[in-house]
């Protein structure tokens, strides 16, 4: 289950952050998003792998990065657009299929582009569009459902 999604601008300014949990752990989720940003920077500045994955927008699993430990119950995935906008996805699922996450980010990106193309949206400011929020929650709800087919 996806517990949190975030859009972070090119100066690491939060543009949109939304959690999808009943419990009051927004602060914890924000912390994870914050930690993930450092990992994004690290991935982008020193790309380990070369070849076709170089400069790909999808950045994969960010947090926890290397050693899986039991106390981590959240996993975050990252996506960096060409315009240096970061998308962070936080989930509680341990075994998420890569394709599902990619598909999620692709649809999320499309929603984001439509939101910022609104002439009333000020670039660099928070996204306040209600349509965007609705679209995001639809995408979040449908996450992982396609794998059943």
């Amino acid at each position: 289950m996806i517990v949190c999604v975030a859009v972070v601008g090119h100066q690491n300014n939060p543009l949109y952050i939304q959690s999808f949990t009943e419990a009051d752990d927004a602060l914890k989720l924000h912390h994870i998003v914050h930690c993930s940003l450092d990992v994004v920077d690290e991935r982008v500045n020193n790309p380990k792998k070369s070849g076709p994955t170089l400069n790909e927008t999808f950045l994969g699993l960010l947090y926890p990065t290397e050693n899986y430990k039991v106390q981590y119950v959240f996993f975050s995935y990252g996506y960096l657009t060409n315009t240096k906008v970061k998308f962070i996805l936080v989930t509680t699922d341990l075994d998420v299929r890569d394709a599902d996450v990619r598909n999620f980010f692709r649809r999320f990106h499309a929603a984001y582009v439509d939101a910022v193309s609104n002439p009333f949206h000020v670039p660099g400011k928070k996204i306040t569009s209600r349509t965007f929020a609705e679209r995001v929650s639809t995408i979040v709800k449908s996450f992982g459902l396609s794998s059943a087919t």
Partner: protein
Amino acid sequence: MGREVSESCVDSLLTEMVSTYCNRFYANKPELAARRIEAIGYQVGHQLSERYTMERPRFSDHLEAIKFICKDFWSEVFKKQIDNLKTNHRGTFVLQDNRFRWLSRISIDPSLESAESQDSSTPAESKAAQASSMHLYFPCGIIRGALSNLGIPCAVSADISNLPACSFVVRIKA
């Protein structure tokens, strides 16, 4: 997706926008009108670049981004690519379009030309050049907006060589 818009509508809108800014809002301040038109283009370019770079990997250097502008971006906006790209490899790029769509329908007002050519041919010509150069602030803004959204701050200027052809000079700020 794949929504389309009538080309003639865009042409008319552009002409109307330029003439409104130049003749109504800032009739005596062409500098200010140019700045405003460029700012509109900037916003358009900013948003378009977000949309058109959606399905592609990130650019590794400036040249790649400029090439994207010349090929994919230009094709999306004008249904053709930039005809010629030159660079001095030190941050200046010249993008030449031999038949720029937004200039292809511009003609010099014959009444204006004949009336003024009796005195001297220069004012009419410069007036016509000024009028058509006004139409280039919008595409300049689009290029600047697109590149700055891709993380490349730059200054863009345009000049008209002979009418449907024009070139855009992109100077990347260090």
